[in-house]
């Protein structure tokens, strides 16, 4: 096939990137485990830590505006925000250790952390 000859490099590159994406996803998926609590930071500074097994709501005030974080049913989600793109709200809930919700305009990062009994044992069960 003529087209395949002239585009051999392209096809190999695309295949390599698809394999890379799949391998990364598999790696993250295999290593995932439920988190113990969420850590909320504004511009790199931790402002709050909430356990995931207790339902709660946390208003986050930043220089850029405010966000409302809800913890319910073992997962945390950004309920509302006044940032322009609302990507943090659209990201949906997070529950696995290492997952995060990021609101770039406000510099807010919500990260799921290992619980006290999490870490290696929880990951290898």
């Amino acid at each position, binding site marked *: 096939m003529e087209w395949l000859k002239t*585009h051999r490099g392209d096809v190999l590159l695309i295949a390599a990137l698809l394999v890379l994406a799949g391998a990364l996803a598999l790696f993250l998926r295999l290593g995932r485990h439920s988190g113990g609590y969420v850590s909320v930071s504004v511009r790199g500074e931790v402002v709050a830590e909430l356990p995931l097994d207790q339902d709660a709501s946390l208003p986050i005030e930043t220089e850029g505006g405010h966000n409302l974080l809800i913890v319910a049913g073992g997962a945390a989600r950004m309920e509302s925000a006044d940032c322009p793109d609302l990507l943090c709200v*659209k990201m949906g809930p997070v529950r696995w250790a*290492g997952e995060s919700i990021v609101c*770039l305009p406000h510099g807010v990062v919500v990260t799921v952390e290992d619980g006290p009994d999490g870490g290696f044992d929880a990951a290898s069960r």
Partner: protein
Amino acid sequence: MNAKRIARFGLLVALALALSYAESLLPSPGVPGVKLGLPNLVVVFALYRLGTADAWALSLVRAALASVLFGSGVSLAYSLAGAALSLLVMCLLKQSGKFSETGVSVAGGVAHNGGQIIVAALLLETTRLAWYLPVLCLSGTVAGVLIGVVSALLVKRVPEFKS
């Protein structure tokens, strides 16, 4: 730079900016950084038809203007980092001679997303953004294929802009 070249350059910057704006109107799929990369049509075109120097100027001017006009305060760093890493990789791949516009565009799309993740990780002082890598790698590849196929047609068929 003669007048004709300046006029062409301005036209392409305007076109890339218009595409940036058009893209900002599209609904976001919910993961930051997942997008088509419409302005990259113009950057790939410029890279092949005007040369490396003009493509760099176009891409950086486009990124800076777009983030000032359509972005929020911190978006300048993301925008420039994505544009610069993307174009660097595209230049290298083009010079290797092993790839067509499609391959170059695919690598550019993935590199753009990679550059933005790196800046986000630095600015937010977190390494936990690794969770976005698989989906951004996939979306960069798919968007790169679409943009690359159209760019290849443009490079082949647009009659003007021979420098």
